């Protein structure tokens, strides 16, 4: 077909027989294992008047490649002082410093570039210089430039607790908390200078790939976030013979302020000069900054009543105010009620011999409404968007009359009625303990209706409106499900063991969501679970070119043998964009999750093992996991070798193509994968030294342990970890960790 073959048969044979050397970019870039160290020292103690707790911690986690590491130093302390019999003053502080170091290129990019690197390319020239690569060079990316992020976090609290002496059971608590977080980041981005050998072995070319437009650039930024929380409450708690009454009034206010500042320079004369002052003085520099405020105010009223600890009742009202809503819509009112019945205290159980194996049985029922304003905050949950205003923000730079000009651009359309989202949760539960605690269970049945969900009506409002839409209190979604947890504890002649099983099933159903007016019924969200996957239904592959002609017209034609054949879902005699349908009601959030843990101790040994699993989860492959030679010539995964040929008609992938093939790249069940799994999440084995040994060293307890996490996974999906975050395979993987440690108590 015009093009000559890229490789001769000899070259192909040499590659397959291993005569041609290949580069394993995974092995070269990533470390087989990385170290993790953790130390903690805790001190607790006190007198009648003062009690204290202090903790010092250190964590050092190495990443999968050099330069990637995480360090954390933490210091925590609590001191409670009983000033007199009615007044207790407490202070606490929690200070952390974290250092997060890495390459200037993100781990996701490095994983992407490892995937893309060609096995037939060598990383270095014979003289040690970086060899020219068609794709970004992952080895060079991890060894040049850096990103250093330091985070300082502190939270300081002061609390007074005053008993009101003349009303028995009443006390008042006041609390002030000051929080501060400061993140400093320094990103030194260095381009990759690549050299290519010509046929005579001379190094002839210098490439400065990547970097900031091929140049060195330094960005330094500081983000500060400060919070003040004031909290005052009155608590009342009184028991009179059979009647218990308690009440709470709580007031809380929260104010936060954040600001960020960043500076950028480029055109550094030499790699290694990594302070801003070395940057070139050529106008290509930038300083930027902004700030935000946030606030919240809450009132909580709660009353509890119980009779003979057998019948329990609670009613509460929460009033929340959010800065993100307009003046008349700031407050939301959220009531809740619950009741409990301790059956095991009833005479028909306590007096029954046949039911005496029941040591504890409680029936619970509750109904409550909770509010949320998270959808009008940014991803960090810290910066409110004031969507009730029509506001303009700074836009890109325009050049006009050869001069840079600032611009402002309209933000989203205002929604003056924006207010709280509400979720009404009904819960029914039964907890019990049987045979003296040998079998314990907790079961929950829940029904949650979320209404006034803050959603943009992007599905139904035509684009001709031309505005970015504000969130509106519009959608309604139902969630139903159950949770079960069972545990069994026992001890047989010195052997203590436990088994715990938990599982949950949850499904959602859309009650109200805006729908496009002309959307066919089978694509409507209403009445269906959230986020089903829409795509084409693959009927397999065309086995011959003539089959293409015999089949219905598919898109604008042009398919060949080995291309995907799709179903004519709406039976209109042709396959086109109207033939998309729901290809899976499961999505990447598993509907069923569960865990199984068991373990035991015998003499000085102890062991515990945890399995986790998920089912009814489907993931859709994309990019290099679904496309041959993406973007013209990118390398791809070995799984794609299972492609269609006349001899391999049952392949996972269609015929390979170069360039693009929109027919085969469509979202269809062909690329849907069942990502159910069972994972051996952790194993922990310990040995506690006998006291006769430890006593000599004035040690209360000494335990040494070995633990491992993410040890094994069983899944139908072999290509990636079933919990992969990016369907293109470009993600930092879950690591298997093995720990050896000691706990020492004096």
């Amino acid at each position, binding site marked *: *077909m*015009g*093009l000559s073959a890229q490789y001769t048969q000899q070259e192909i044979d040499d590659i397959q027989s291993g005569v041609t050397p290949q580069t394993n970019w995974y092995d070269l870039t990533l470390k087989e294992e990385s170290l993790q160290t953790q130390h903690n020292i805790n001190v607790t103690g006190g007198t009648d008047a003062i009690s204290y707790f202090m903790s010092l911690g250190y964590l050092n986690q190495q990443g999968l490649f050099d330069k990637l590491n995480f360090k954390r130093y933490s210091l925590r302390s609590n001191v409670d002082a009983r000033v007199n019999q009615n007044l207790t003053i407490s202070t606490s502080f929690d200070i952390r410093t974290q250092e997060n170091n890495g390459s200037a290129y993100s781990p996701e990019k490095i994983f992407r570039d490892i995937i893309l690197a060609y096995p037939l390319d060598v990383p270095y020239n014979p003289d040690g210089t970086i060899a020219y690569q068609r794709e970004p060079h992952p080895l060079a990316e991890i060894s040049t430039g850096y990103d250093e992020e330091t985070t300082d976090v502190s939270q300081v609290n002061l609390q007074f607790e005053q008993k009101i002496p*003349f009303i028995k059971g009443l006390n*008042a608590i006041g609390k002030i908390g000051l929080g501060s977080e400061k993140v400093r980041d320094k990103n030194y981005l260095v381009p990759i200078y690549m050299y290519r050998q010509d046929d005579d072995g001379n190094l002839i070319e210098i490439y400065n790939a*990547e970097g900031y*437009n*091929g*140049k060195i650039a330094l960005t330094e930024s500081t983000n500060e976030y400060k919070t003040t929380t004031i909290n005052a409450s*009155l608590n009342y708690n009184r028991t009179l013979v059979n009647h218990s009454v308690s009440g709470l*009034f709580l007031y809380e*206010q929260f104010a936060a302020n954040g600001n960020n500042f960043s500076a950028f320079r480029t055109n550094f004369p030499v790699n290694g000069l990594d302070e801003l002052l070395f940057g070139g003085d050529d106008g290509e520099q930038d300083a930027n900054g902004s700030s*935000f405020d946030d*606030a919240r*105010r809450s009132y909580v009223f709660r009353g509890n009543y119980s009779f003979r600890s057998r019948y329990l009742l609670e009613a509460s009202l929460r009033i929340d105010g959010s*800065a993100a809503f307009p*003046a008349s819509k700031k407050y939301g009112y959220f009531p809740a009620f619950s009741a409990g019945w301790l059956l095991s205290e009833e005479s028909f159980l306590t007096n029954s011999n046949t039911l005496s194996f029941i040591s504890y049985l409680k029936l619970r029922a509750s109904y409550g409404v909770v509010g949320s304003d998270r959808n009008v905050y940014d991803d960090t949950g810290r910066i*409110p968007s*004031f969507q009730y*205003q*029509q*506001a*303009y*923000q700074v*836009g890109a*730079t*325009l*050049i*006009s*009359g*050869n001069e840079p000009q600032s*611009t*402002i*651009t*309209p*933000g989203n359309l205002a929604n003056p009625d924006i207010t709280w989202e509400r979720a009404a949760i009904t819960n029914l539960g039964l907890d019990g303990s049987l045979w003296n605690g040998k079998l314990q269970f907790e079961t929950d049945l829940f029904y949650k209706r979320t209404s006034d969900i803050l959603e943009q*009506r992007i599905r139904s*409002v*035509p*684009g*001709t*409106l*031309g505005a*970015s839409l504000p969130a509106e209190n519009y959608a309604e979604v139902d969630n139903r499900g159950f949770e079960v947890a069972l545990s069994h504890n026992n001890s047989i002649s010195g052997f203590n063991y436990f088994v715990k099983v938990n599982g949950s099933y949850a499904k959602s159903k859309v009650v109200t969501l805006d729908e*496009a*007016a*002309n959307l066919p019924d089978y694509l409507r969200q209403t009445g269906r679970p959230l986020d089903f996957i829409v795509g084409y239904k693959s009927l397999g592959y065309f086995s011959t070119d003539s089959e293409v002609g015999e089949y219905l017209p598919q*898109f*604008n*034609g*042009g398919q060949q043998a080995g291309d995907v054949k799709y179903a004519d879902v709406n039976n209109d005699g042709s396959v086109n*964009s109207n033939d998309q349908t729901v290809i899976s009601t499961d999505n990447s959030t598993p509907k069923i999750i569960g865990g199984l843990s068991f373990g035991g101790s015998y003499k000085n040994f102890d062991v515990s093992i945890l399995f986790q699993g998920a089912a009814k989860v489907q993931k859709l492959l994309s990019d290099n996991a679904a496309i041959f030679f993406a*973007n*013209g*010539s990118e390398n791809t995964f070995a799984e794609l070798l299972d492609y269609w040929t006349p001899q391999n008609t049952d392949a996972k992938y269609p015929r390979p193509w*170069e*360039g*693009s*093939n*929109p027919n085969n790249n469509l979202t269809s069940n062909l690329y849907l994968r069942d990502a159910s799994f069972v994972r051996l999440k952790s194993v922990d084995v310990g040995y506690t030294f006998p006291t006769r040994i430890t006593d000599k060293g004035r040690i209360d307890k000494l335990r040494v342990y070995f633990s491992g996490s993410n040890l094994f996974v069983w899944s139908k999906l072999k290509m990636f970890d079933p919990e992969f975050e990016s369907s293109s395979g470009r993600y930092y993987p879950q690591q298997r960790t093995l720990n050896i440690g000691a706990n020492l108590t004096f």
Partner: protein
Amino acid sequence: MTFAMKKKLYIIYIAIALFLALSCNDDSLLDVDSNTTISEDKVFQDPALIELYLNDLYLDMPNFDFSFPFGLYDNITDESRSYWGDAPRNVVQGQWFPDYNPMEYWEYGSVRNTNTFLTEIEGSPITDEERSTFKGEVKFLRAKLYFDMIKRYGGVPIITEPQDLSDDLFVNRETIDGSFEFVIKELEEAADLLPDSYGDRSTDVAKANKYAAKALLGRVLLFWASPLYNPTGDASRWTRAANMNKEVIDAGVYSLLPEFRNIMLEKNNQEEIISVQFLLGSREHGWDSWHQPDSQSKNFAVARSPVQEFVDAFEMQNGKAIDDPASGYDPTNPYENRDPRFQKTVLVNGTDFFGNTIYMYVGAIDGINEPYATITGYGLRKGTNETNTTYSGASGSDQNWIELRFAEVLLNYAEAQNEALGSPDQSVYDAVERIRQRAGLNPYQLPSGLTKDEMREKIRHERYIELAFESKRYWDLRRWKIAKEVLDGKQFSAMYITKEEDGSYAYEVKPVDGVPCVFQEKMYFMPIPQGEIEKNPNLSQNTEW
């Protein structure tokens, strides 16, 4: 203190605390506001902020193709092909649909911004003169937005006010003629409102003035007269188009730049009518980077590989086509003595480019079909700044994007006048010959006594060569309704150059790839985006989509 006093004190404490807590409903605490935005009522009350918003509207003018793999509209015609596959390859293969159209331009976000401006500006505290200039500029920009939609979809919904969510949002499509008439009326109004000049050329090039509005109107009228949009062949439209373009020519404000190679390099030159300006460090594009051969590329390469058919379309310097036996064309030395625009447009094997000699023969470092190398044996030179050393990826260059230049006005005039008359008059010859003279053809004159049809072919040829790689050709092929004839089923060609032992080159033409072009009748009008058809029951889809 007695117990009673203490008790009173406690009650007072609690009362104060409760009072403080509950009385905070004045809500100074929750009364926070965004520090990073400006409210709309402030914007239109402040002349400085109005200008910033007007600047934003200019930002929406289409310019260089920044979407990967850069160069869509040239790589889907008979100009060039893309190494990168992706969108241009899909379009070439006919694989574009209502829900996937790389050429989609449903630009109602920008339209809304112009509508908001035109509505709110009425009450702003500015002089009447400022107001009329502002309105003229925004009407120009809005007309351009609509025109760029109409040329794709035919009739579109015409919305002239910023809608609210409570308005009837299911707007019908206007007819093709109705849509054109709206744009024409708006541009006529803009021309009346706008000043002749803003005082200096660099501003006149960036902002719409009276002549920019008239020149754009000349283009719009030409499109409306063209076969695709004028199925009944209403000849009066050609006359109107000729007259409007003649007005711009006769105004004498613009002239051709003497050197064709420098059209994009001499910024804000006398030929530029409306441009999108760039400035290193502030707003950059990658024209110099996009067209590098791999050996000197930085983070991108070979956005456009010109096809052999385009190369063959260049005449000899003597003005004769290469298939004319009298042209003197030598197939063993195919690049000698061609139209001087040839090597100013196309990068040819063995010529210097950004200081190095570039080799694209089979097996050379930048040889045809090497990774990240040309797929046709040619590269692009037009408009590149060969002294630039800062190019990288999609940045490092700051040539203007020339949306409309005087050469196009001459060609628009020549075409419209030729179509309006029974046979071409001297003014048609003059307009085309001005361009051929500037190109350096010798002789530059066209043969005399051409028929209307022969002249049409000459003008179309001249547009193909002169306006190549300015994203004009695709729209010409469509409006002339010849896209199917020129593209459908065609397999475009590449030049495989072999270096012989003695250092000479042998030339062989082969297909670029195994992919014939697909251009179906229905594609003359693009499909309305699927999502819009789904949302708006009043919106009709174009035929056969």
